[in-house]
C-alpha cells in the first residue's frame, strides 16, 4: 500500500499539537521504523493511517484515496487491508488464541471453512499451534503478542502497523517477533513499526523515520536508532 502524507497537522482539543506539518511518502512494500520519544506523535500518526483520527490540516492519501473523503460505508472495507498490532494487544479475553484470530475473518464475512484453514495457517506460522486453545490470560506476553500479530496478518493485509510490538518482551522473544515482521514484509506487505527498541532498529536495518514533538526530524534509508536530544 502506498502512503502519501502532505502537510499533515493534528491538533487535539483544546489546543494540543500532536503532529505538525508532516510530509512523508511510503512506497508499497517498504519497511519503516517510526521512532521518537513518548509523546512525539508516533501513535497519532498510526491512528491517522487507520482513520481513527482525522487530520486538522493536510492530507493522508493511501493508494490514491484521501482518507478524509473516505465514506463511512467504505471504511470497514478499507480497514480490511490494514493489519494493526496494538501496544496492549487488545485481545478478547474470553476467546482462545485461535478464536481471537478467526474472529477477524468471521467479522469480514469469510466463509467458515476458508476462515478455519487461514487461521490454522497463521497460528502455525507464529508458532502457537500447541497453545491455540488457551485464552490470553493463560498465555505469556510474547505469546499474546504473537496472537496479536497473527490476528493482524490473517486477513492478508497490504499495510501492517505495529505499535511497540516488542515493548514488553525479552530480547529473544522480541527477536522472534521481529523475524515474523520481516517475513510479513518479505511477502510484499508495507510494514510500519513504531518502536523504542534500539537493539532491533540497529540490528535489522531498515528505513527510519523519527518524530520529535510532532515534527518529522529525520528520514533515513537503513538508519540507526538515535533519538534527537539523546546524549
Amino acid at each position, binding site marked *: 500500500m502506498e502512503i502519501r502524507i502532505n502537510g499533515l497537522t493534528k491538533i487535539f482539543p483544546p489546543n494540543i499539537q500532536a503532529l505538525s506539518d508532516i510530509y512523508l511518502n511510503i512506497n508499497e512494500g517498504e519497511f519503516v521504523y517510526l521512532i521518537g520519544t513518548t509523546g512525539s506523535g508516533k501513535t497519532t500518526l498510526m491512528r491517522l493511517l487507520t482513520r481513527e483520527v482525522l487530520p486538522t490540516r493536510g492530507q493522508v492519501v493511501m493508494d490514491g484515496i484521501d482518507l478524509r473523503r473516505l465514506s*463511512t460505508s467504505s471504511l*470497514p472495507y478499507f*480497514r480490511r487491508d490494514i493489519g494493526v498490532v496494538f501496544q496492549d494487544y487488545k485481545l478478547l479475553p474470553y476467546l482462545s488464541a485461535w478464536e481471537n484470530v478467526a474472529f*477477524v475473518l468471521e*467479522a*469480514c464475512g*469469510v466463509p467458515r471453512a476458508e476462515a478455519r484453514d487461514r487461521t490454522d495457517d497463521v497460528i502455525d506460522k507464529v508458532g502457537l499451534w500447541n497453545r491455540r486453545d488457551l485464552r490470553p490470560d493463560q498465555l505469556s506476553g510474547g505469546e499474546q503478542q504473537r496472537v496479536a500479530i497473527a490476528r493482524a496478518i490473517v486477513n492478508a493485509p497490504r499495510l501492517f502497523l505495529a505499535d511497540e510490538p516488542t515493548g514488553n518482551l525479552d530480547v529473544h522473544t522480541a527477536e522472534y517477533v521481529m523475524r515474523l515482521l520481516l517475513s510479513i514484509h518479505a511477502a510484499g506487505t508495507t510494514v510500519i513499526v513504531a518502536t523504542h527498541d534500539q537493539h532491533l532498529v540497529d540490528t535489522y536495518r531498515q528505513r527510519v523515520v523519527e518524530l520529535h514533538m510532532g515534527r518529522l526530524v529525520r528520514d533515513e534509508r537503513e538508519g540507526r536508532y538515535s533519538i534527537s536530544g539523546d546524549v
Partner: protein
Amino acid sequence: MGTYRYIFRDTCRLFFRHWGLSLLTLFTAAAVFFLLGGSSQLALYARKISQNVQSSLIIQAYTQSEAGAAKVRDSLSSSADIEEIRLVSPQEALEVLRAKLGSQAQSMLPAGEIPLPWTIEIKLRDASLSSVVAKELSAMPEIDEIMYAGALADRLTKIASLITKIALAILVIAILVSGLVFYNMIRISIYSRRQEIAVMLLVGSTRSYVASPFVFHGMILGLLGAVIAVVLLHYGQSYIGATLDEVLPFLHTHLQWRELIILDQVLLAVGFATGWLYSYFAVRRYIRSAAKPL
C-alpha cells in the same frame, strides 16, 4: 454463513454474560406487557358490556289509541335509525304482564278491566341515538309517555370510551417504560464490550455486523417478555371470564377466541418491535460515536 453463526453465538453470549440484567429486563418487559394486555382486555370487556346493553335496548312509547300508535309507527317507519317498530296492544301487554307475574297475577292484579295503553316498541340500529329518537317521539302529540334506558346506555358508552383511553395511555407508557429498560440494558451490554467493539471496528467489521447481536438480544427479550405476558393473561382471562359469568351472568361478556388471538398477536408484535427498536437506537448511537474519527 459465518455472519449468522457469529450473530447467534454472540446473542447467546450476551444472554449469559449479563444473565441477571437479562432476567431483570425480561421480567420488567413481561410485567409491562402484562399490564398492557390486561388494560386492553379490560377495554374489550367494557366495550362488550356496553355493546350488549345497547343491543338489547329498546324505547317504549305509550299512547291511548290504536290510531295514534299506528300514526306514530307510520311516521317513524321511514327512519334509517330504526331497526324495528312493533305495536303492542293493551291485551297483549296484559298477557305479558300476567306471564311475568305468574301465580301471583291473580292476587296482584285488580279484577275487571285494566286500562293499559297501546305500546310502541322501537329498536334502534345504534343505541347512542336513543336520546335523539326519544326527543323526536316526545314532540309528537299522540305520545303520552316514553320510557328508555338512554342514560344507562350513555353512561356505559362513556365508561367504555374512558377505559379505551386509559388502555391507550397505558400502551404509550408501556412502550416508553419497556423502551427505557431495553435501551439501558443494551447500553450496559455495549459498555461491557466496548473494547471488543473497538477492535471489531478496527479490523473491518461493518457497523451492522457489530450491532446485530445487540439488536437480536433486545428483540428476543422483548418477544419473550410478551410471550410470558400472553401466557399469564390467558390464565387471568379464564379466571375473570369465569368470575363474571358467575356474578353477572346476564351480561354475556365472553371475549371471543378471535379477539384474544388478535390481542396476543398485537402484544407479541409490540414486544418484538419495542425490543428491536430501542436496542437498535441504543447500539446505533454507541457505534456511531465509537466509529467517529477524532
